[in-house]
């Protein structure tokens, strides 16, 4: 992984691609799979927005649309044994990590068939099966947890990586600095993945940060830090693979700044007073799904028939997920207090000691 600073002006209004060190190669099937994964996220979320308007989904709903290349590229580079810590904008990570879409949709509905039994909703997706540790609605709150998961791996000598996603907003939190410092100090296997979509809710990066080169902050803690074009799934995957390899080999933590953009509002309640429509339109020119689709078509990798098959598969999967959620059941009110504490054997054993 490169340790050099990139000279890209991160706050440019018109998006500037980060020039790749080399063109990463991906096989045909792999690229089609990436496209398929991004489309699953995009259309799942389009459906969620629709269901939100219909009153099926409540609470806060933060859409990831525009940023799909980050979750898909990064998670394609990780293994099943690795752990993921994400943010409240985590539907994309959950799907890319392999949480079944039906269980995710049921969670959005608050049904007990949901991946958090309906207890968490959109912002609190958990799944032990895929080592998905949330879904955290406190900005920066996941970083210390990721550090701890990595500490457990290091102490138990397991060659695993904990991937910790967070946004540019989290960089302003004390926990960002504490966590990068501790991970670097103790050489812990954490891969810090900063999704820089330029806005912390409505506050643009340069209005919140004196230093807008975020990778430079990571490098100041003596870990490799690199900026990556987060709109290009191939670049994200290649950079994540390089960084994760180093982390897995025991080189300590690494940091990637994934430069991306949120096409939709922050949440369903955001009037977007803080940015120009023209800026959004300019970024949409670099839509990761559009870019990859064009490239695959132009290079002849994807035929119209192959693309149509993907579209059909995604559409069927979403229909199935909505059906699964609709048919799901609400947890009994009698179980309200279940799982506040763990029912446990040791408790009764300890009581005997009295």
């Amino acid at each position, binding site marked *: 992984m490169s340790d050099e600073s990139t000279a890209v002006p991160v706050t440019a209004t018109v998006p500037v691609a980060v020039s790749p060190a080399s063109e990463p190669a991906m096989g045909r099937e792999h690229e089609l799979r990436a496209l398929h994964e991004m489309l699953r996220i995009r259309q799942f979320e389009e459906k969620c927005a629709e269901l939100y308007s219909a009153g099926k989904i409540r609470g806060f709903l933060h859409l990831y649309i525009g940023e799909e290349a980050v979750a898909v590229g990064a998670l394609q580079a990780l293994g099943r044994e690795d752990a993921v810590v994400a943010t409240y904008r985590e539907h994309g990570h959950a799907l890319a990590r392999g949480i079944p879409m039906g269980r995710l949709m049921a969670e959005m509905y608050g049904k007990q068939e949901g991946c958090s039994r309906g207890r968490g909703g959109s912002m609190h997706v*958990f799944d032990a099966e895929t080592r998905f540790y*949330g879904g955290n609605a406190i900005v920066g709150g996941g970083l210390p947890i990721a550090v701890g998961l990595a500490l457990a791996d290091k102490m*138990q000598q397991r060659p695993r990586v904990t991937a910790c996603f967070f946004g540019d907003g989290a960089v302003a939190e004390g926990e960002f600095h504490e*966590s990068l410092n501790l991970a670097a100090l103790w050489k812990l296997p954490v891969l810090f993945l900063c999704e820089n979509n330029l806005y912390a809710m409505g506050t643009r990066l340069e209005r919140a940060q004196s230093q807008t080169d975020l990778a430079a902050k990571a490098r100041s803690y003596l870990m490799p830090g690199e900026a990556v074009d987060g709109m290009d799934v191939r670049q994200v995957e290649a950079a994540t693979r390089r960084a994760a390899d180093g982390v897995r080999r025991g080189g300590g933590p690494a940091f990637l700044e994934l430069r991306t953009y949120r096409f939709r509002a922050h949440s369903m309640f955001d009037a977007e007073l803080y940015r120009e429509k023209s800026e959004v339109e300019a970024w949409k020119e670099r839509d990761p799904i559009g870019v990859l689709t064009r490239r695959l078509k132009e290079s002849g990798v994807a035929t119209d028939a192959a693309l149509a098959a993907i579209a059909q598969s995604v559409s069927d999967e979403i229909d199935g997920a909505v059906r699964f959620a609709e048919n799901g059941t609400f947890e009994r009110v009698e179980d309200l207090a279940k799982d506040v504490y763990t029912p446990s054997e040791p408790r009764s054993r300890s009581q005997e000691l009295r």
Partner: protein
Amino acid sequence: MMATVTYREAIRTALREALTKDARVFLMGEDVGKYGGSYAVSKGLLAEFGPDRIRDTPLSESTFVGAGIGAALGGMRPIVEVMTVNFSLLALDQIVNNAATLRHMSGGQFSIPLVIRMATGAGRQLAAQHAHSLEGWYAHIPGIRIVAPATLEDARGMLWTALEDPDPVLIFEHQTLYNMEGPLPEAAGPVDIDHAAVRRQGKDVSLITYGGTLGKTLQAAEQLASEGIDAEVIDLRTLRPLDMPTIVSSVRKTHRVVIVDEGWKSGSLSAEIVARLVEQAFYDLDAPMARVCSAEVPIPYPKHLEDAALPQVPAIATAARDAVGHRG
């Protein structure tokens, strides 16, 4: 066989036992290693167990407490030491938003077997940023367990039981207790963390307390005994969940209640106990319940003012006399 030990040594013995018995246990916090612990609790453990298991952290409360949560999720059994309860406010987000919620919010998928120890309380002229008693605040939070060892047996025995608990346990050690010395059976071991204990049997009034004020309350009870008032002293031990059956059965016997708590009265643990007794034992009461708590001020530095701010033996005795003397 009895040995004479201090409260500090009793905790150290418990730490040593836990580190020896379970390879997943480790201790981390500020100055727990080379310095030996700010209250010297972990002195010598670094040499004995090495830097992998006795971890000095940077002054990053939120992150090392959060890392304890993550390590617990990753299969370890972390003991995190926070220097004092006032400093724990820097980690409040991790404790309240993560440690206390993750199990319920994940639908029971993840437990967090984490133990957090910290010093609490006043009495050493450390003023308002090192001397508060905020354990009552923590007792407000569902999802965590709060314990307060007030005796050598509990200092020795609560840690292992807390480590066996699959959920987060916060242990509050009153800073005036570390030097308390007394006999402890060499065979002392784990104790339960579910029940309050009756430390002195009596029939005239129930004095309900915990932690740093247990000693003062027992002294007041002795004074009262010389006046012919037979006070029962209850040590809560566990502040969440409260052992109401033990408290209520004492009140059914004495019909009079004084609560002694170094926390403030407003919105407090003592207020909670009063409320629950109103709910559960109203018709057993023969006098208004009384509270002896800290004055509603930030704890001041000079000794005379600090003393004036804290619950003291004469005030406890007076409150008990008033309760006993009350004629409805």
